[in-house]
């Protein structure tokens, strides 16, 4: 079966006052049918830009300078998929593509709803914009989805956004994302602004939805432990590039990129001692004045002359395990005890 989303050589530039900045640099990856791919990175790594790029909702100063994004909708019958080249879409077809094919749940859903419209109106607007359900069937489907995200559907349906808590609003947005049955859902830091219990609740809801419904997921987060719970595959993003990409087991058990290893060592575990926790020294690079060679070398304990001068190409550490590092073979052995 072909992947739901294929991204090839995507580059996104921002025009800033200090000059042009490449927020995403020549990125390629696939999202397979029904899988959950986690994009993990520090803030400023470009992971949100990547999400916005797929639905073409980038801010005005951003521009996609190269690359292809191919989306495929396919049903279970095995009929040939409907292929959409997302970057060629304009106007009405782009509008139709958004949410119907690919829904994006934003971070900070607190303000995701129009304060003067009821939740029901948000469902109605969305359905109407895509010529989908209306009237009774819309209400039934809306309430069914609200129940699915464990909300009191009768009450929430008639509520105004300000009458709901942050966690409730986030779940409403997830329900709304499911309304048109898209095959790809992008979740951008869906739990960031929420307290730990609400966060737990949302993660449970998402896992339940994944088991019940059929959609692919891109999960954008800075939190590796959340990714571990939900994702089938994990991509670590650094300075606008995917530096390591593999299935979740491999990433945690046998990571090869020093950055990924650093991220894992920064995650507290139940059994581990506090002393084992280390953070990665330094901070993400300034995108305007990017370091030469491998962009991670100023923070990397393994960096040598080659790392400082030449940027590594992506290579396969194993089948289905990509890594972009000169030292990956060394890193695997040496870096178990980082720092």
């Amino acid at each position: 079966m072909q992947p739901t989303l294929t991204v090839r050589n995507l580059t996104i530039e921002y025009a800033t006052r200090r000059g042009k900045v490449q927020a995403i640099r020549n990125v390629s990856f696939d999202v397979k049918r029904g899988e959950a791919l986690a994009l993990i990175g520090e803030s400023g790594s470009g992971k949100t830009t990547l999400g916005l790029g797929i639905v073409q909702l980038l801010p005005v100063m951003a521009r996609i300078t190269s690359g292809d994004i191919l989306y495929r909708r396919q049903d279970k019958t095995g009929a040939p998929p409907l292929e959409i080249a997302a970057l060629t879409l304009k106007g009405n077809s782009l509008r139709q593509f958004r949410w119907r094919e690919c829904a994006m749940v934003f971070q900070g859903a607190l303000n995701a709803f129009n304060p003067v419209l009821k939740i029901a109106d948000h469902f109605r607007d969305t359905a109407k914009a895509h010529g989908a359900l209306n009237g009774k069937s819309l209400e039934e489907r809306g309430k069914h989805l609200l129940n699915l995200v464990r909300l009191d559907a009768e009450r929430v349906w008639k509520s105004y956004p300000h009458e709901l808590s942050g966690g409730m609003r986030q779940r409403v947005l997830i329900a709304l994302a499911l309304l048109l049955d898209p095959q790809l859902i992008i979740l951008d830091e869906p739990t960031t602004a929420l307290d730990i219990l609400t966060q737990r609740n949302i993660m449970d809801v998402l896992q339940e939805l994944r088991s019940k419904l059929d959609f692919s997921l891109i999960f954008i987060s800075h939190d590796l432990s959340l990714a571990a719970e939900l994702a089938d595959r994990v991509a670590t993003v650094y300075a606008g590039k995917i530096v390591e990409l593999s299935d979740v087991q491999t990433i945690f058990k046998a990571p090869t990129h020093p950055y990924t290893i650093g991220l894992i060592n920064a995650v507290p575990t139940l059994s581990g001692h506090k002393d084992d926790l280390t953070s990665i020294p330094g901070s993400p690079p300034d995108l305007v004045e990017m370091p030469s060679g491998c962009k991670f070398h100023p923070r990397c304990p393994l960096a040598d002359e080659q790392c400082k001068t030449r940027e590594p190409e992506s290579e396969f550490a194993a089948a289905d395990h990509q890594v972009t590092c000169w030292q990956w073979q060394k890193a695997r052995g040496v870096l178990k005890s980082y720092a």
Partner: protein
Amino acid sequence: MTTVTRPTRFDLLTLWDRLKSNYLLQKIAQAIFVVWFVTSVTFFVVRAMPGNAVDILIQDLTLAGVSPEDARNQASLLIGLDVDKPLPEQYGTYLLNTLRGDLGQSYKSSGLKVSELIVQVLPWTLFSVGLSLMITFTLGIALGAIMAYNRDTWIDHLLSNLAATLDAVSPILIGLLAILLIGVTWKMIPISDMRGAMSPGMKPEFSWDFIADIFMHVRVLLLVYVLSTIGSWMLQMKSSTIATLGEDYVTVARARGLTDARILTAYVGRNATLPLFTRLAISIGFAVGGSVLLETLFTYRGVGFLLAKAILERDYPVMQGVFLITTTAVVFANLLVDFVYGWLDPRIRIAGGEQ
């Protein structure tokens, strides 16, 4: 709906808190308070202050040869209060009279009741000011939104500078300029058309002739009202729209694939307009204030014209009455705006509806 429960400890603070918690009640109480306050201030200025208007009237009458007693009687008759009674009692009578709509008699047009004078001219001001407010509000909002959507293009620069200029220049100067340009230099509209609310001999009736005639007379005044107030609306709407365009829910609405038309109206437009409603209060007061000058300039026989005339003739009962009525009108217009606002913004929607 909860029924009114009697507060066990009745004091001003609990009353205050109860008022604050109910939007509708709060606004009504506020409106009543303003009207009472303005009524009392006028009484104070006209009757109780040292060197007040009534004392001056009595003095003038005495100087004109009327015996002191007759002068006091005459003054009492004109203002509808017995000037020999103690002040608190006069205040009471005054409040009662005002409540009944009795605003005293004009000094100058003898025998004419102030209330009748006002009733004759009030419709013209309500018509011209109300119409201009509606035009300005709609046009200002549309232009402000256009400026925001085309931010930093030539059209935004042009409109922004125009709005700032119009906002800066006094209405009276815009009025004079309109007469100079439209009437004298370009000779587009005969100057006589600009004067008065309707042509001589025209009878108020519901006919096309009448409607055409009043619009012919009001058009330049209307233009001046609109020009002198639209600038601030445009600038306000522009900044409000820019702020709304940056809101998350607008981005999410785009991600949801809503049509541009729906986003512009229900998501951006409606939310960007909300803060402007709170400003409508100031704007109504400003327009009514401007009517004193502009109606005088265009000899448009409305309330403003009457007030200006009363001021020149030192006709205190008329001044007092007109001021009272205009303030009351503005206060109730604001009350109306508050209701509409409460209905438009669910976040402050009146408590007690569905609970």
